[in-house]
């Protein structure tokens, strides 16, 4: 008992320099996010983040490393060296795996990667929570009477619950985004009741945990939270994945914050709050861009009914088909062209040849701009990354509200791989599932070029698009990459 008591004292009284170091790393993380306010400062910001993480890791290693008798530094015992070796091996293994993945990953696969990374943070939080339960003395949360501090039990229980939900939810999000699992929503009967019941049960167990610290409580919290994570994400359709990924981003932050409360660690609390708010704001932005309420996204099922109901009711209307040569001719004559890329462009891997086309047009004196809808990719800002990868300068890329007024002075609106984000039904048709979603005013442009594989398919939301049938619309029916390649060839003549 006396040894335990002395260890608590050590943890409560971290040296002042360590407290300052954790605070510094928290501040560096704030600066890392601050740097992202512009691409010019973002790289420095990322370096601040790395330094902050380095400080947090080194401080912890120095202050928390095994203390058998007095201090491990400068004379560590062989046992200490074994522990240190294991820790460095674990860090090294993670570093090799992490850097390898980061180097190889395709930019189109970024949403899956982020989901996979979230699942790791979630699982790590669960493991840390369980370790704190098993070894409360090391975490400094053991009371002199041998019980775990009740406040810490709540923090630990919540940390484990949020971590487990983050883990299993992210695994499902990964499987849906990576195509291991159909993007279609899976709707269980009575799911709202089951989900609410499970959530309430978890909260009840966390409350009970303050009274009874036996192992079954924490095991039950863990298991139920893993289950609710699966249940919450399976009914959410592929179109809503940007919201889900942002939401899980937020959860991973709250999990880290809960563990920070357990450890009384400033760096973890600041980081948790930053990441938690970041994910929440991104979810909000994505919901607003789709005119959906957060609750309706979480409730799930979007896309299931619309896809079934459409198709039969669609009437045949006349439309005009254009060739690559026609398109090239009109593009070359234009003064301003606005390109509206969607995820279909990325699927067709057309971004590089699209940039070639833009280069040729610019050489011919045409002003070329790119217009990005917030939901253009599979995660917030995804399309910007894909264009940046294709060497499109970021000052030619504009957000929806910044460019929407320019279509009236635009000769060609060039739509490639997008559909719902240019659908005027969102502005006029109250019965449309996408009604109220902010869309590009492409119909104000003199000419609309719409690259599409065939006239059959519809967008993610499963609705027909009036733009196909407008007088000034030229449908370019082909694979996006092939069509742009043909336009590039035609421009050379």
């Amino acid at each position, binding site marked *: 008992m006396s040894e335990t008591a002395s260890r608590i004292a050590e943890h409560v009284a971290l040296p002042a320099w360590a407290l300052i170091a954790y605070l510094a790393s928290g501040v560096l993380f704030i600066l890392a996010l601050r740097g992202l306010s512009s691409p010019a400062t973002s790289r420095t910001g*990322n370096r601040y983040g790395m330094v902050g993480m380095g400080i947090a890791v080194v401080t912890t290693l120095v202050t*928390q490393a095994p203390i058998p008798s007095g201090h491990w530094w400068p004379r560590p015992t062989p046992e200490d060296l074994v522990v240190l070796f294991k820790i460095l091996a674990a860090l090294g293994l993670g570093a090799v795996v992490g850097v390898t993945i980061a180097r190889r990953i395709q930019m189109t696969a970024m949403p899956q990667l982020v989901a996979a*990374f979230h699942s790791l943070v979630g699982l790590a939080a669960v493991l*840390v929570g369980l370790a704190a339960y098993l070894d409360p003395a090391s*975490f400094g949360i053991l009371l002199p009477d041998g019980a775990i501090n009740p406040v810490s039990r709540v923090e630990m229980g919540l940390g484990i619950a949020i971590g487990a939900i983050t883990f299993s939810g992210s695994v499902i999000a990964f499987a849906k985004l990576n195509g291991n699992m159909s993007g279609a929503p899976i709707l269980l009967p009575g799911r709202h009741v089951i989900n609410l019941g499970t959530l309430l049960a978890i909260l009840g167990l966390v409350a009970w945990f303050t009274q009874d610290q036996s192992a079954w409580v924490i095991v039950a919290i863990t298991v139920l939270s893993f289950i609710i994570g699966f249940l919450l994400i399976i009914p959410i359709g592929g179109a809503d994945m940007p919201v889900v990924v942002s939401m899980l981003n937020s959860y991973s932050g709250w999990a880290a914050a809960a563990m920070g409360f357990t450890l009384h*660690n400033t760096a973890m609390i600041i980081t948790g709050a930053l990441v938690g708010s970041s994910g929440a704001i991104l979810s909000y932005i994505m919901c607003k861009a789709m005119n959906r309420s957060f609750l309706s996204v979480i409730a799930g099922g979007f896309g299931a009914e619309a896809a079934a109901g459409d198709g039969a009711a669609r009437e045949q209307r006349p439309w005009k088909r254009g060739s690559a040569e026609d398109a090239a001719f009109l593009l070359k004559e234009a003064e301003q062209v606005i390109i509206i890329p969607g995820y279909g462009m990325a699927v067709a891997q057309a971004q590089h040849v699209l940039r070639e086309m833009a280069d040729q047009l610019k050489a011919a004196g045409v002003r070329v701009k790119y217009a990005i809808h917030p939901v253009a990719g599979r995660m917030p800002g995804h399309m910007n990354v894909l264009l940046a990868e294709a060497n499109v300068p970021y000052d030619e890329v504009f957000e929806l509200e910044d460019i929407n007024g320019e279509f009236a002075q635009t000769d060609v609106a060039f739509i490639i791989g997008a559909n719902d984000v240019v659908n005027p039904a969102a502005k006029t048709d109250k019965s449309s599932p996408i009604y109220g979603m902010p869309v590009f005013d492409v119909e104000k442009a003199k000419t609309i070029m719409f690259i599409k594989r065939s006239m059959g398919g519809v967008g993610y939301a499963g609705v027909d698009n009036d733009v196909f049938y407008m007088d000034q619309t030229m449908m370019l029916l082909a694979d996006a990459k092939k069509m742009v390649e043909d336009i590039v060839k035609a421009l050379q003549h």
Partner: protein
Amino acid sequence: MDFISILSIFILACFVGYYVVWSVTPALHTPLMAVTNAISSVIVVGALVASAAKGESLSSWLGLAAVTMASVNIFGGFAVTARMLAMYKKKDRPAPKGDAK
């Protein structure tokens, strides 16, 4: 530190987060997610505490597993963010010199 001081730090940090994140340009929202993911791996601090406990206990092995996962995230997250940020370039201007990138 008592609970109230910790809670104060947390609440204030939420406000800082709110304002800092709204000032992030939408073009960098994907790197934002990647970097927040990397920094949320600061949970490695807890994992290190668990794994640094002496002796062969279950909790130290759980801690080591958590260190490995967090480390994948830290290195992977910062590396992939750096890779993305390196791609964001300005328009190449024809001006011969004096134009900073």
